[in-house]
Structure formats: structure tokens, C-alpha cells
């Protein structure tokens, strides 16, 4: 699925597919990377009234370039309001005011639980990952969750090394029994297609594929026997307008990141 053989890259079709999941007017709690690109693409195309909240406390932000960090000045300058961290987590997320939360992780299991803490043993990890951040709260309190992750046997695992954030726990209604306000992950968007939870067992099931991708490719990239929906949806390729908007956004971002910072110091220092 390289750019050489198609009109788009894996990242591009993932971003476009994620952006199409967002309804105009929804309130989104946004993370950095593909989620931020997907939300801003949606805002610039089919969902101009999308409300974006970044966990830095910038509410209703409308960046013209994608931020590198969760708290770039661009997010503050274009926000409706800037609130403190206790407020963004308590008043917005925990109080139930977020429709869609985006998550990624290093590992996911068949019930969409996520690991972003360690690979290996917690006390002596092989790889120390960044950790929880706001993911456990997003996973619990957002009305629904979208997950974006590349699908490989190392990341789609039968058993997580560490459960940082809850998806459907052990499945078959286990999450709902905890009283968690949010309904859980609605879709996992990968570089092959989309997985959705089975309505009875909560097990992630392959439900849609991108053009030119076969079921066996997705199965081979999954560390458990992947179930396939009886009616598999064929997802459309990104349309030219979406690709143009996304590439313009990314070109602007690269230019902004390459710009050197200069600080003027008072003469006496």
C-alpha cells in the first residue's frame, strides 16, 4: 500500500476514513498525530462546526496548521476558551460533554482494551512507553471512542502486556456492567480497514476494507483469529478534494515547523 502503487498513502486513507466518522457539530477530544489531522480535515471539509478540545485546555480551537504538541500556541490563539487542566478533565470530559474521544496505543486486544504504558514487565520493561496521559479518562467518559492504529501482529495482540485504558474489558457486556458513562470504542481504524465491536460479544470484527485489500491481509496482521463480518463493507478511496485539503494542511504544518525561532534579549543580559 505504498504511495507508488496508489494515489494515496496508508496514513492518508486512515486519516480520511477517520474524518468521515465525525458528524458535523460533534464535540471531539483530540489527540496529537493522526487524530488531530483527521479532526481538522473533517472541520475543513464536511464538518465545519466540529468542536475540537485538546487536553491542554484549549476548547473550540480552529488551528490553521497542525500542532506538533498538544499545547502549541496556535491552539491557544484560535480557541474559544482556554481552561485549566483540572477544568478540561472535570468540567468537559468527566461531566459528559464530549461526544467523541480519539485514542491510539502500542497494543490493542480483541476487546479493544489498550496498552500505552510498557512492553514487557512493568517493573523492568523492555520498552517504557509514554504512559496513560488522559487516555483512561477519554476511554471512560467520552460518549464514544474512535481508535486509530496500524495493524500488525505486534500491536494487535492476544494479551496486553499492560491494560492502560479500558475498551470492553472481557467482552459480552463487561464494560457496561462497570457503569462507565461512555459506550466504548465504536470503531478501530487501521491501515487495512475498519474493525467494529460485535453487538453481543463486544469482540472486534473486521467490518470494512479499503480498496485492493483482502481479508487474508488483515487476518495476517492480527495476533488473534480475527472474526469477519458476514457483510463486509468496501470503503471508498479518499476523494481528490479530501486529499488536497489534507496535503495542504500537512504542507503548511511542515513549513511552520521548519521556521526558526528567534528570541530578542534585552541588551544588558
Amino acid at each position, binding site marked *: 500500500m505504498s504511495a507508488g502503487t496508489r494515489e494515496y498513502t496508508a496514513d492518508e486513507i486512515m486519516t480520511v476514513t477517520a474524518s468521515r466518522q465525525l458528524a458535523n457539530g460533534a464535540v471531539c477530544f483530540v489527540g496529537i498525530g493522526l487524530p488531530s489531522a483527521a479532526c481538522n480535515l473533517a472541520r475543513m471539509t464536511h464538518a465545519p462546526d466540529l468542536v475540537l478540545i485538546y487536553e491542554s485546555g484549549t476548547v473550540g480551537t480552529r488551528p490553521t496548521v497542525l500542532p506538533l504538541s498538544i499545547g502549541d500556541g496556535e491552539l*491557544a490563539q484560535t480557541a474559544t476558551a482556554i481552561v485549566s*487542566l483540572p477544568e478540561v478533565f472535570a468540567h468537559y470530559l468527566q461531566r459528559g460533554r464530549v461526544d467523541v474521544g480519539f485514542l491510539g496505543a502500542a497494543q490493542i486486544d480483541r476487546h479493544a482494551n489498550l496498552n500505552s504504558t510498557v512492553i514487557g514487565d512493568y517493573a523492568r520493561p523492555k520498552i517504557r512507553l*509514554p504512559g496513560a496521559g*488522559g487516555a483512561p479518562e477519554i476511554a471512560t467518559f467520552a460518549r464514544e471512542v474512535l481508535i486509530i492504529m496500524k495493524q500488525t501482529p505486534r500491536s494487535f495482540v492476544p494479551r496486553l502486556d499492560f491494560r*492502560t485504558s*479500558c475498551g470492553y474489558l472481557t467482552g459480552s457486556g463487561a464494560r457496561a456492567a462497570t457503569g462507565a458513562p461512555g459506550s466504548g470504542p465504536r470503531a478501530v481504524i487501521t491501515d487495512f480497514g475498519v474493525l467494529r465491536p460485535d453487538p453481543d460479544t463486544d469482540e472486534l470484527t473486521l467490518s470494512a476494507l479499503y480498496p485492493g485489500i483482502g481479508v487474508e491481509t488483515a487476518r495476517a496482521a492480527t495476533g488473534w483469529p480475527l472474526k469477519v463480518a458476514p457483510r463486509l463493507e468496501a470503503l471508498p478511496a479518499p476523494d481528490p478534494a479530501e486529499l488536497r485539503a489534507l496535503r495542504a494542511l500537512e504542507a503548511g504544518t511542515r513549513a511552520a515547523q521548519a521556521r526558526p*525561532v528567534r*528570541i530578542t534579549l534585552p541588551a544588558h543580559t
Partner: protein
Amino acid sequence: MQLLPLKEAIAAHVRDGARLALEGFTHLIPFAAGHEIARQGRRDLHLIRMTPDLIYDQLIGMGCASRLTFSWGGNPGVGSLHRLRDAVERDWPRPLALIEYTHAELALAYQAGASGMTCGFMPHHADTDLDQALTSSRRVASCPFTGRPLTAVPAIRPDVTILHAQQVDAAGNVLLRGIVGAAKEAAMAAERLLITVEEQVARLETDLNAVVLPSWLITAVSIVPGGAWPSYAQGYYPRDNRFYLAWDGIARERGTFTAWMERHVLGVRDHAEHLRALGVAA
């Protein structure tokens, strides 16, 4: 409030073994103060920060810390904090004990500390492995009114909190503008509060509800222009995303990291010299 040169403020108020919070969420990170702590060779610090960021990667790599309380330890939008990883994975340059929270929990722990509470509460739903991690001190309690489960986190009361801010006025009151993160809570939770600022002005030009820390809450203020670089100070200079990207290469190997720190932090007199040597300031 005392107006002190940064070197004197750190020497007087930051001791070996201190519980130390350098706050500022992506914005207004007190890099100049962190570098002065490294220059003065503090040891055995218990570092507290929601996002350790490059500043704690530097202090950890220089062997200044023995404990870290945090909620997300990466280089935002770039990848790993390599020095943090090396300390946790291979004990280099010394072992680092982790006390790990989620963002909401750590913000709550600061707020509890700032409010004179012994702990803070939030709704509890599903357990995660964070509850089982050895160093965790969170507990599940129940609401005395409804019986619903609550997550309780112990209050954080740093010995010293250090912030960077935009301005101090003639009377010593300090103004923060833009993304404030948990800076105010970390300030109010601390025993001592040190602040570096971009500049001193006669009078703060503020709206009525601006974030102003009254002078009598503050232990010392140091005037350090550019003191948040490579993070940023809204209204003064933007985040140096180029440097955040470059840090990945500098910090990946022990040798290049140590050489960079020796040349650009230990080998300079102060932050102004640091910025000039790197070509950030003329």
C-alpha cells in the same frame, strides 16, 4: 516576594532530595530554572510534572533525580524521551522510581494539595493495570452519600514549585497568559514558589479574571527573558518545534546527550548565554 537572580533563587530554595514540581503544560515550561538546577548539581530530587518533557529528560539524564511522579512521559508529537527510558529500562545514569498517574488524577492530586485536602476524588469505573502497578498509591473509596465508587488520589504538596510566566509587576504580582495547565494548582500546593518571568513591568495589563499570582504567595521571582525556550511564552516567542524534533537525535545516545548538556548547559554561565550559543538569541 523577593526579586532574586535565578542562580541565587535556586541555591537558596532547592535542596538535594526535594520534592520539586516544574509545571507548565507544553507552554511556559521553566527550562532556565531546570538548567540552573543541573548546573548546581542537585541530586536525589523527587521530580513531579504531568508531562516530564525535555526538561526532565535532561535532569534525569544528568542524574539529578531518584523519583519521578508523572502522567505522560513522551516528547509530544515526536516520540520517546530517551533519557527517561534509559533510566527506567537500564538504570542509567541511576535508577529512577516511577509514581504514575493519569492526567486527570495528577491534576486532581495537585488540586487537593492546593486546597488543603489529604486526597482528591473522581468517579471510579473499570479497573486498569494502573491500579495494580506497584508504585500506585490510588485507592478505591465510596461516596458517603450515594455509595458509588470513587478513585482517591493522595494530595501532592511539593516542597518547591517552579513556574515560568510572562510578567511581574512593580509590586511583585505575576501574570500567566495562555495555556495554564495545572500551573496554578501546583503553585498553590507548594511550600515554596519560585517563578521566572519574561519581564518586569510597572503595571500588569489584564482583564479582570486573568491568572495573577499575588506577590505574597511567591517566594522569589527571577527575571529570565526566553526562560521557557524551547517551550514557549505566549505573546513573546513560539514553541521551537524544530528543537523538539532535533532533541530526539541529541538524546537518543548517552554520548551525544552528555556532550550537548556539558557544552550547552553546564558549560554556560546562564540562560542568555545558552540561547546565544545555540543561535536562538542574537
